[in-house]
């Protein structure tokens, strides 16, 4: 079995060798040059003969040549990044070289503005205290594909994801080197923040289809081309203004073109900035933004066969962040903005300090990158490309931390008017009208928003809060920095050697990556292109915290506040004294009560080392009626966690569960250098794909693609509590004891998928229809949240997640006379979980989460009722209609109207635990534990089951486990309108000036939810006078921890002026 991949490679190679090696004699050729209107040479443009399905790319001089063609009428499709594509009807004469001369393309001056939309969304990725982030939109690029061309930008606002796949299923390369992070699985678009020109040229293949630079994967594959000769010679300077996260940008790009000595140079500098956006409700409220980007690339060509590239780029960025908010907060804060058109952006992360705005969440990122590429055209049939890359992703985010002090978040649930409802809701979900003695509570009242409040709500208190929120009172709705400083100063007086009450900490996640790639192409065999590749990546993800600002305190002490707070319970659970387990609160046992000053590391400090090695092979056959490709890949990967701090909770867990010590501390425990080295978890993942294109005729094609693969879990999902110990998802340990091959992909996700496309291409009408179906088995996800039952943070690792993604994509483009083109696209999908998942839950501070006859239980085994839940990853119903206008006097405009629906809230697994319905979960050994405070205890079960086997809850409890649609109740609020208009002016001496204005969400739809998630916490009350293990009950105020949402920006614009010379 171990030899299987190697045997497969041999067989594939053998198949090629037995094919007749017929080399055609001199035949019909086609050549020409692609240039811009102003004469700029366009390199890297794709030139395709539509009927013969042949294509090539232009060289640095814009030249192209296609050989061995069939004579007759043809359609020549030319596509180049940064330009609007064109289709030319040509006649190819037999047995001669057909010279087409210069083909001129119009620059797509709206592109920069559109790229900025994607980048802004990528950077506005939101982090909150449940560690939730919102996926950015798919990286579909502008291309000749009608569908991708339309959706790439129009569907980015609602964060549409191609076929519902998360980012880790898309592959992104730069000059043939993989840049998907081994730890996070995704490409960091903000690494190239602001460097639009640098990242403009790329080749993208749709979903499973074959490409030249990689095996690809399930989602789109993109290779950014950054050779210096790709860029147009000369200067390009642009300035932009916008009302998004940043307000202004300036850029300058220079490209030398290919010099006579064989060198070419290109460089870009970019600067984007915004002071704090002070106006409440305005897009980017409370956010400041400074980003400087640089990009330099040098290319050396010698002879006709050698090319060397050296590339470096980086974009040191500092930017504030904003947060997802509950509907209540959104509605209240928007009352303040109700008369201000376009404003809906309340941001709880900022506050005034000494009268000046300050955001508590400042991201600092910098991804210095160096790439070297060597291309060796060995001869006409052999081509070799080698790549070497170094990438250091420095990413950190600040956040307030506090010790024995109140939570400083202004939108903390207890600070909101809705918290007053707690305890006032009856079993039917209504306000109580009589108290438990039967006393009538009288009539209630309505607040100015029209919400009814029952007679048991104190109107004065409620309205004080309501008014403060709806008037955006600073002391209520924003962080109170002055109070925080005052608390620390007071603490310096009362407790000069003690820990600060508040600090601003910085959470670092730095990733170092070294990469090597080799790509070999062989085209000697007629109709066949063979491609093989090797990829090696060594990564080290480093996680630690530092003190960003002591906020006038003397110092921070490195202990865990939650462990300290719960030390009495932790001692009781272990039947030990507090003194005996005093170590539990230490974050670094070797340095107890360590005094931490500014910039010192504390809390946790660990690395995850990852190695990835891929070998792949691909054959592409091109015949007259049929194209066929097939490819195979094998991936070896491993991960190993190493901690530079011995955490007290890990020691505590070993103390009370000695049999688990190897899992918490690794196989060898503490080494001589004081480091803890965990298990090395190894994975071997095979992948296969195949595709067939049947050319019904030159204009109508049928395409079929299929893939089967396994994919190792991401490191970020593999460890249950990586800040504390080495414990990983259970089945990963198998690899250290593996005896056969299948053990090495036992923990990997298994994927099988395929798509079928009908594509047509006529001079007036182009389009395609694609159906796709993909199944996933054995996915892994990690969630962390505050659990009211355990009164501490818990980690939940889900395994065995199965999903299916199926749907249809369709697009149609119709030319309407000389000036107009009408394009429509739709994607209708059904992405859902198809089974329940296993879950293991443990507390971050080592607290027991249950008990049974064997005593306290620290890891709870359960399952999550995920079957039937929709995958929350962008809308599943999308449709757009775009009207484009082009006037030969270089006026451009387009209007796009889009409709989005079937977008779903991300459910909290903690609300769908099977034990909540059955009253029982289990310890590691399968012994039952009686659950404290379940739906069953609350008599919330109806006795009925839904079609997926999940018990149905009575109202209002049903609100807790239902998946909500994010589509607004008003259908008009599901529409977005985007408009773009531009003008290009040619000046003497090949100079040009272009102006473009892009407006997104012109209808100012401020109710459009782009995503959201259920909070994991369940509303609980404590029963008095009963034993501890049955003292909790889920209460009737099911809205206590409501969902949080991300909203689309209101109307926003991007104005660019570009001067080329």
């Amino acid at each position, binding site marked *: 079995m171990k030899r299987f991949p190697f045997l497969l490679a041999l067989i594939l190679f053998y198949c090629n060798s037995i094919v007749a090696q017929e080399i055609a004699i001199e035949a019909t050729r086609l050549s020409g040059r692609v240039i811009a209107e102003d004469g700029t040479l366009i390199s890297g443009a794709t030139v395709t003969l539509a009927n013969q399905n042949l294509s090539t790319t232009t060289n640095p001089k814009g030249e192209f040549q296609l050989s061995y063609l069939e004579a007759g009428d043809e359609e020549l499709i030319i596509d180049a990044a940064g330009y609007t594509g064109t289709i030319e009807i040509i006649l190819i004469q037999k047995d001669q070289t057909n010279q087409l001369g210069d083909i001129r393309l119009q620059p797509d001056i709206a592109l920069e503005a559109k790229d900025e939309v994607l980048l802004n969304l990528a950077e506005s990725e939101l982090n909150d205290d449940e560690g939730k982030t919102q996926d950015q939109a798919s990286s579909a690029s502008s291309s000749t594909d009608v569908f991708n061309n339309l959706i790439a930008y129009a569907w980015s606002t609602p964060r549409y994801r191609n076929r519902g796949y998360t980012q880790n299923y898309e592959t992104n390369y730069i000059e043939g080197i993989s840049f998907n992070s081994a730890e996070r699985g995704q490409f960091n678009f903000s690494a190239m923040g602001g460097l639009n020109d640098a990242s403009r040229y790329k080749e993208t293949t749709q979903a499973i289809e074959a490409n030249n630079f990689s095996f690809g994967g399930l989602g789109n594959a993109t290779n950014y081309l950054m050779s210096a000769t790709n860029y147009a010679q000369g*200067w390009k300077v642009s300035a932009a203004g916008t009302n998004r996260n940043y307000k202004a940008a*300036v850029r*300058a790009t*220079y490209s030398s073109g290919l010099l006579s000595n064989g060198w070419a140079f290109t460089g870009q*500098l970019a*600067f984007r*900035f915004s002071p704090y956006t002070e106006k409440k409700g305005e897009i980017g409220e409370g956010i400041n933004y*400074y980003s*400087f980007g640089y990009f330099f690339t040098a290319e050396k060509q010698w002879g006709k066969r050698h090319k060397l590239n050296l590339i470096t780029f980086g974009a*040191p960025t*500092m930017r504030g962040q904003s947060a997802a908010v509950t509907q209540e907060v959104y509605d209240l804060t928007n009352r303040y903005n109700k008369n201000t058109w376009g404003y809906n952006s309340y941001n709880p992360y900022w506050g005034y*300090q000494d009268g*000046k705005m300050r955001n508590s969440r400042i991201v600092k990122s910098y991804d210095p990158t160096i790439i070297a590429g060597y291309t060796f055209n060995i001869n006409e049939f052999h081509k070799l490309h080698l790549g070497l890359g170094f990438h250091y992703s420095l990413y950190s985010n600040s956040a307030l931390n506090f*010790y*024995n002090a*109140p*939570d400083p978040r202004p939108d*903390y649930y*207890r*600070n909101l008017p809705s*918290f*007053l409802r707690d*305890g*006032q809701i009856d079993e039917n979900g209504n306000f109580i009208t009589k*108290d*438990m*003695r039967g006393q009538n509570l009288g009539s209630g009242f309505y607040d100015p928003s029209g919400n009814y409040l029952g007679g*048991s709500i*104190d109107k*004065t*208190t409620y309205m*004080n*809060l309501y008014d*403060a929120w709806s008037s955006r*009172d600073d*002391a*209520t709705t924003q962080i109170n*920095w002055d*109070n925080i*400083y*005052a*608390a620390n100063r*007071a*603490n310096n*007086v*009362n407790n000069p050697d003690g820990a600060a*009450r508040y600090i601003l900490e910085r959470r670092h996640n730095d990733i170092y990556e070294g990469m090597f790639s080799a790509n070999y192409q062989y085209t000697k065999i007629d109709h066949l292109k063979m491609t093989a590749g090797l990829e090696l990546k060594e990564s080290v993800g480093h996680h630690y915290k530092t003190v960003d600002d002591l906020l006038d305190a003397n110092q921070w002490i490195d202990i865990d506040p939650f462990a300290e707070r719960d*030390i009495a319970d932790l001692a*009781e659970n272990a*039947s*030990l*004294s*507090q003194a005996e387990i005093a170590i539990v609160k230490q974050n670094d046992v070797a340095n107890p009560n360590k005094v931490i000053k500014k910039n010192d590391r504390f809390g946790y400090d660990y690395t995850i080392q990852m190695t990835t090695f891929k070998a792949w092979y691909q054959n592409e056959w091109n015949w007259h009626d049929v194209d066929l490709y097939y490819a195979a890949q094998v991936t070896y990967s491993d991960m190993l966690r190493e901690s530079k701090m011995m955490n007290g909770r890990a020691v505590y867990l070993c103390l009370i569960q000695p049999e688990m010590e190897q899992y918490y501390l690794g196989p060898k425990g503490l080494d001589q250098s004081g480091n803890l080295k965990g298990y090395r978890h190894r994975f071997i993942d095979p992948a296969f794909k195949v595709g067939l294109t049947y050319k019904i005729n030159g204009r109508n094609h049928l395409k079929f693609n299929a893939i089967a693969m396994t994919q190792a879990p991401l490191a970020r999902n593999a460890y249950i509590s990586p800040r504390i110990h080495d414990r990983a998802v259970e089945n990963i340990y198998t690899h250290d004891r593996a005896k056969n091959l299948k053990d090495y992909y036992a923990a990997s996700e298994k994927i099988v998928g395929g798509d079928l496309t009908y594509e047509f291409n006529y001079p007036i009408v182009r389009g395609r229809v694609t159906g796709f179906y993909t199944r996933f088995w054995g996915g892994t996800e990690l969630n962390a949240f505050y659990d009211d039952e355990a009164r501490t943070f818990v980690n939940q690792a889900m395994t065995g997640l199965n999903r299916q993604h199926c749907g249809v994509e369709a697009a149609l483009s119709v030319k309407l006379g000389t000036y107009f083109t009408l394009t429509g696209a739709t994607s209708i999908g059904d992405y859902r979980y198809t089974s329940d998942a296993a879950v293991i839950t443990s507390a971050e501070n080592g607290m027991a989460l249950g008990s049974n006859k064997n005593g306290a239980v620290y890891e709870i085994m359960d399952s999550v009722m995920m079957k039937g839940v929709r995958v929350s990853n962008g809308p599943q119903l999308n449709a757009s209609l775009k009207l484009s206008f082009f006037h030969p006097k270089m006026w451009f405009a387009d209007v796009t109207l889009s409709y989005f629906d079937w977008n779903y809230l991300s459910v909290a697994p903690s609300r769908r635990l099977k034990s909540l319905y059955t009253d029982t979960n289990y310890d590691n050994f399968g012994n039952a534990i009686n659950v404290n405070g379940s739906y069953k205890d609350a008599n919330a079960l109806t006795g009925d089951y839904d079609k997926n086997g999940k018990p149905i809850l009575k109202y209002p409890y049903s609100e807790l486990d239902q998946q909500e649609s994010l589509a607004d109740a008003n259908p008009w609020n599901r529409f977005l309108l985007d408009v773009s208009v531009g003008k290009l002016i040619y000046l003497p001496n090949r100079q040009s000036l272009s102006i473009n204005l892009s407006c997104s969400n012109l209808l100012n739809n401020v109710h459009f939810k782009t995503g959201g998630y259920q909070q994991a916490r369940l509303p609980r009350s404590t*029963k*008095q*006078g*009963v*034993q*501890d293990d049955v003292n909790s*009950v889920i209460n009737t105020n099911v809205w206590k921890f409501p969902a949080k949402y991300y909203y689309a920006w209101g109307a926003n614009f991007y104005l660019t002026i570009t001067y080329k010379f």
Partner: protein
Amino acid sequence: MNKHIATFSVIAILAISLISCNINEPGQQYINEDQVKKIVGNGLLLNLNDLKRAPYMTEKGNYCDPALYRLRASGKGHTKDVSYLDTIWLFSIDTIPTGRPLYIRGRITTDDFSGNFYKTLCIQQMVGGRQQALRISVDAGSVGGLYQIGQELLIRIDGLAIGRYANQPQLCVASYNNNIYANKAEEKVGWVPGRIPFSEFNKRVTLIGKPQTPHCDTIEIFDFINHLNQVENRFDDGRLVCIKNVYYTGQYSKYGDPANCTTNDPDDFENGSSANVFAPSTGNMNFPQSRIITDEEGYMTLVSASEYAKFSHFYLPGANENGIAGCQDYVGNVTGILGYYRDNNITKLYNNVDSNAPAWADWSITIRSLDDLQLFDEDGNLWERREYRRK
């Protein structure tokens, strides 16, 4: 080429200079006496005891003092007649009317570091040579971390409420308690003192000067348990006091009578209430646990602690797993917040007749941490903290 370099340089310098802007430096926000006067302006600055006594209008009713109640019986929102007062309530709540700005001021005397002043601040104000005090109920865990011991506060109070829980006055908001999960739920149902929402409290508070060590009066047990002065003494609830030359008797109050503590498991809430620790479990009923101290005169009072305090399961000074024999060996000072707590719903306060319990058991000292117990053996050794450990 030089032109190109110059262009790049200008852009780079511009970028670097803009990116290196600093974040704001923190500002000062304590106020002084002049600023206090300015803030109060035409408003009214009340003494704490005035606030406790003041017959502000009530919408919620159920105030315990019939004399005051009659004064306000015609007030807005009353639905009950005076005869209803014969049933004295465990809770009362009176809203403080809005209109004219009303303020109080006082220095914080508590913190919750040890978990014994959950969501409560006590403030103290020197008036006419005597400390006045008030409890403030704020809906924020570890509120003492933000409003720290020794810090003087100016608080705007109109729109809030004065409530009593078992006759213990507190600044609060009105809240309806229909807690179906409570024990003895019937008597607790109704309008009760609720915690002031944290953001609401923040909005109302201004810090006066920098923190200073709060004043602590040394008093005798007799001073506050004296029956004759009980009504007036009740206003001393919340004061920070120190009682000298006292020791733990190893007893607790069993319905008002001293009873010896035992070596029972304090986690067993049904049988462990007599355990010789500071605060055995109550099964989450949340009422404070008390242990008796006595002075040279033989007067007794209680030292109170919460079952959620970090030291709740520490043995009483001198006690251990074998019993309470050593308790009386440790004598010294006990510092804490004086409390008057009368949770008997048939108490007749207006004539000071107590049908059920001796007055001494209505009083307690709530310690802020074990550091408040400065008890020494005859050799001058400070008592050693020892934890209960389940066998």
